[in-house]
């Protein structure tokens, strides 16, 4: 599902964030990406959602070479993946429902399907009763769950998450992981970047450890 070969990303000041990185994630896998701050986790995720382009090397996701996609192909690609941002990236002026439905609107589904699917996924994260609330009226944990609901709403083949449990207490973090596990059980490939070793231990899945932009080890 995800294949990187000799992937390198060097930022403007010449600082390499990823160095000759080669790894693969199979379809249907649940993988943790871990490592200390500055290891390259977030950079790899940014490359995976085409927020940035690699300096060199190959990055192929679901058969698409991301480095060479046109802007229109990038739009199409992004509609097939889900992403949970570390800072949630919820739209403050829109309700919980609208924040989730925005993805479906981007894909052009009808109003009935949109309503059914958005409410379904909100129910899945336990927030159907807060669908009319605005993000700033929610707790950190609730905002995180809205972000997860938005990532899941279009049934993506692949979900990326950047520190998705960073603002949650341990119980909520496990609850959140259960959501990802359920999603993974339905066939979605999941890649989560986190430095929470305890969480990784409790969930017990494949782990790729990065350090200084290189793969340090895989468990």
């Amino acid at each position: 599902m995800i294949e990187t070969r000799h992937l390198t990303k060097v930022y403007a000041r010449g600082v390499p964030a990823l160095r000759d990185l080669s790894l693969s994630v199979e379809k249907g896998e649940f993988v943790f990406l871990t490592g200390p701050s500055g290891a390259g986790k977030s950079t790899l995720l940014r490359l995976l959602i085409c927020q940035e382009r690699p300096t060199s090397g190959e990055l192929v996701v679901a058969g698409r070479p991301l480095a060479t996609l046109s802007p229109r192909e990038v739009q199409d690609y992004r509609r097939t993946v889900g992403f949970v941002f570390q800072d949630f990236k919820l739209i403050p002026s829109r309700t919980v429902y609208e924040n989730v439905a925005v993805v479906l609107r981007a894909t052009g589904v009808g109003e009935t399907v949109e309503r059914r699917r958005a409410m379904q996924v909100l129910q899945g994260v336990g927030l159907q009763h807060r669908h009319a609330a605005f993000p700033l009226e929610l707790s950190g944990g609730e905002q995180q769950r809205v972000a997860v609901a938005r990532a899941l709403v279009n049934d993506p083949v692949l979900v990326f998450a950047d520190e998705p449990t960073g603002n949650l207490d341990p119980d909520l973090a496990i609850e959140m992981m259960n959501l990802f596990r359920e999603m993974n059980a339905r066939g979605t490939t999941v890649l989560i970047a986190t430095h929470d070793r305890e969480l990784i231990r409790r969930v017990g899945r494949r782990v790729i450890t990065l350090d200084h932009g290189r793969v340090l080890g895989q468990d």
Partner: protein
Amino acid sequence: MGATGRRARSWLAEAARALVRGWRTSMLAIATIVAAVFVLGVALMGSAAVDRVLAHWGRTAELSVFLSRDVSAAQRAAVEQALRGASAVADVTFVDEREARGRFVRTFPDLAALAEGPGAPHLPASFDARLRPDARGGAAVEELATRLAGMGGVSDVRYDRGAIDRIASTAGLVRRLALALAVLLSLAAALAVLSVVRLSYVARLEEVEILTLVGAPHAAIRGPFVAEGWLQGTVGAAIALLGLGGAFTWVRARYGAALAAALGVDVLAFLPPRAWIALLVGAGLLGAIAGGAAVQRRRSAP
């Protein structure tokens, strides 16, 4: 409702929210549109009024040939023959000195004593020629007037058309100036809309970024901003038209009768529906274009 209608409704709702949220800056854009449409509307109405006056005056334009005091019977007959023989002339009336004095007294009753008392000025006899409608303003009349002016016993030839043409030429210049001002104001309005929508865009950059990251099409991201520009343009034009309507009603009530009496024709008429629809649509389009330009895609963006 179809997908397009639903999308348009959603963009308009967002645009309306943005308009309310940033009402202070939106007011600036709307005010410039109001000014542009108001000036354009006044220019159009003024232009139509001038056209009506000139058309009315043109229809009543006559050629008057004033005879000198010592005109001989032969000279008078030659002038009359020249007039009656001209194809541009429909009818000829002779006005003798007594009739001329009578006309003066009827036109200026307050000055009657001047015309009738001892030492009253000489009011010359004249031929008044009514012109054929198809000949008015033509070269044949100009030639006839020149020829008559050179004939013996003729002291002066007055042809109203010349004055009308000069007024029309001045009115045309004023009209062009007004239109140029309206175009300048329209450009200013477009720039104001562009700046205001740009501000709105910058304020919502995070939202735009999120929409981009979830794969929203560029049209879906730009749509609300284009709608915002359209809304500003349309609201501005609607306010301007209401203002024009109010101002027109007031001017008509206060000065309508006096103007009609002075100019000989009722010149005041509001813009026809076709014009105000064109102003509404045009201002909306201008706003939409400015809104679209404000969020033009940056080519370097991924």
